[in-house]
Each structure stands twice: as C-alpha cells, then as structure tokens.
C-alpha cells in the first residue's frame, strides 16, 4: 500500500513523517509524534476526548486522516501550558473541580481554546462547548462552572 509523506506543524514544531493513508490524526499524534495528551475514547466522533485544533478550529482527531493534515497546523493540549504554568482554562478547570480521572479533559480544553479564538461570549460558550464532550466523572457541573468562570473572566478583562 502506497504511503504518503506529510509535513505538519504541531504545536509550533514542523515534522515530516511517512504515514499509511488509513492512519487517523489521533493515532499519528500519539504514536508517531508521541504526543499522548490527545486521548482516544470512542473513535467515532462522539466522546470528544481526541479534540484538537486544526488550522485554529476544533476537530475530532479520530475523524481526520493524518494524510489530510499535510501542510496544515495542528495544536494539541500539550501546547496550552507555558513551561509548566497552566493556562487560564486549565486553572479554571482544576479550581472548579472540572476533572476527576482526566480522560476527557484534553479534548474539553481544546474546545475551550477554539472558543477563545472565536471570541465567543461566555453565554455562547457555556451552551455549546460541552455539547460535543462526554465526561463520566464530574456530572458536568464542575466543568460548566469552570467554563463559565473562565469566559466571564476573559469578558471582564476585555
């Protein structure tokens, strides 16, 4: 089977790798680039754990082929903290008890990052961000509080 050489910029680092056409972006990130912060849950687009940014917008990494990101830019949860200092969204999720086991957290943080780029209001974000994510620990209340707090703080700072 013909493999494809792809060059992709992930978290600011440009890499060139050879992939099988059937390789999912989620597996490419985890296995080829060893960025295991992107989690793989359902592998059919429902759970949201593998959410990453592709050219700045949130996508399911399990529903994109690695071959399709040739020449594009990907950001994963590893890009959020700055030398161990948590970003605002991460701090809010931690302080509001928005995680327990942490499996769904990377995907939710990347959806929050996408909402930040889109300049969405706190009300919009609260009603949309969690639509595409499954969390089996928190009952969503902590997450909801974290999202609301983070985006309200951003609004206040504007």
């Amino acid at each position, binding site marked *: *089977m*013909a493999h*494809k050489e792809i060059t992709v910029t992930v978290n600011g680092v440009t890499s060139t790798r050879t992939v*099988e*056409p*059937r390789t*999912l972006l989620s*597996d490419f990130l985890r296995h080829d680039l060893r960025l295991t912060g992107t989690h793989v849950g359902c*592998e*059919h*687009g*429902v759970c*949201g754990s593998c*959410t990453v940014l*592709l050219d700045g*917008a*949130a*996508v*399911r990494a*399990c*529903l*994109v*082929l690695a*071959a*399709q990101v040739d020449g594009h830019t990907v950001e994963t949860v590893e890009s959020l903290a700055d030398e161990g200092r948590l970003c605002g969204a991460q701090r809010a999720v931690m302080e509001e008890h928005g995680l327990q086991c942490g499996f769904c957290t990377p995907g939710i943080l990347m*959806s929050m990052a*996408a909402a930040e780029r889109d300049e969405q209001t706190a009300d919009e974000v609260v009603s*949309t*961000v969690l*639509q*595409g994510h*499954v969390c089996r620990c928190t009952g969503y209340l902590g997450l909801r509080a974290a999202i609301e707090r983070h985006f309200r703080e951003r609004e206040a700072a504007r």
Partner: protein
Amino acid sequence: MKPAVFEYQEPRSLGEAVAVLATPGRECVVLAGGQSLVPLLNLRRVRPRIVVDVNQVPELTGVHITDDVVRIGAMTRLRDIERHAGLRSALPVLPETAALVAYPQIRTRTTIGGSLCHADPAAELPTLAVALGARLLLRSARGDRIEDAESFFAPPGTSRRPDELLTEIELPRRQGFRFRFEEATRSGGFPLVGVCLGVRVDERGLVAEALVAAGGVAEHPVRLPAGERLLHGRDLAGNVDDVVSAVSAVLTPPTNTHATAGYRHALLRTLLRRAAAALATGGGN
C-alpha cells in the same frame, strides 16, 4: 477501531476527481468532511478499495447568491455556512439549520454535500433541501445532471451513481417566506425527528403558501403536501390539529433502536405545532 487498508486518491481538480470516479471496476467512496464516513471506516462498516478525498478540489467550495437562488459548492463546510453574512440575510434558514447539526467540533469539517450524500433519513440538511425544493448538480465523465432533492433521496441512499460527484446545491431563496426548523435531538447523533415549516402570509396574516417537510418519519426526508394544502388560507395562531393529524396520517415512520413509530408520530405532531406557533408569533426567518 481503525480503518482497514485502502488506496488513497487526492484529486486536485474537478476534472481529476470525476476521472478517478469514472475508472471502471473501482470501488470508490468519496471523502468529503468525513464526519459520517470516517466513523464508518473506523467501525469497518464500510471497507472501500479506494477513498477519493475531494478536500483539495477548489471548484467545490463557495457560496454564490443571486436574486432568486443561492448556489453552494458541495464541499462548503457547515462552520462557514453558519457564519456566512450573505447567507444570513439571503436565506437565513440555511445557516440556522446548519447550526443545529451535531456540534461545533463536527461542523468544522462537515460539508453540505457530504451531509446530503450521506442522506441519513433524519438529518437536518436533507429535510431542509426537500422543504426548499433544492436542485442538486451531479457531474460525471458522462456529463452533468440536475436532480431535485425530493427524488435524490431514494432509499437506501440517494440516486447518485457511483461515478457521479455532487458538485453544487442550488436552493431557491423563497423570498417572502419565513421558515422554522424544529427538531427532537438525540445526544451524539442525528435528531429523532426534524420538521421544516415555511409560510408566506398575505396582507390579512393568512397563509398564502406553505412548505412542509420532515425527516426521521420515513426512509427518507419527505415533503408533506397534505399539510401544505390544509394550511392554505389559515391563521397560524389558530388551531392546527387537523393539519397535524392529516400529516401524521400519511406516514408510517420506522421503529428502530432510537424510537418507535408511535413516538416518532408524537414528535412530528409536537414539532409541527411548535413550528406553527413560532411562525405565528413572528419567529422564524
């Protein structure tokens, strides 16, 4: 799970794409946004020999608005349709309905053409296409063909032939109409039932013309002329029970894992009432 092995083709122009699909004896699937196809590949419910990725065919993306119609390239993504200022004023029901599809992380990739070709019987955009009377442009090496949305949705899928590519969707603007799309959602998937109601009212506030279509109540999205006729001359603020009953009576919805026929009937009746009430009080667009 992971997809089985396939051959990957990336045509860079419409001509190349159609040529790949025309090669005899090839089992191709077209990869558009991938938000329905890739799950099927991952679950190995679809095992094509060749995946033809049309994401790099520039002719397939774009929005063109005229006085009477909007033409949308099949690979235009729902995220872009939702945010398109021209569409928000020319045909607001389209961006509004697009925003109901799945969730934002999916709509980043989903394309209008992919949604129509996947043709889930309950999906929002096929129902909207039927309600508006969309025309679909299909291209193959044999030439171009135009198909009405109503005949395009032909169970178990669509009338698209294996060598054809859906290139463009033409939607009449239906100026003077206001539309409302109501749905009963199901977490993580297509809605159970969706209803699109459009009305043009006369100067007395009575319905001069109505368009009714529903998804999730048959093997494909259906136009409901019985309801359209009964709505004629009516005040939407009044009782629409007879319309709701007439529409329900002509349908035999499927029973499956997600809902029984009886429940789908009940949802259809409720959603139609809701849409009528919203339009009666000046809602919809």
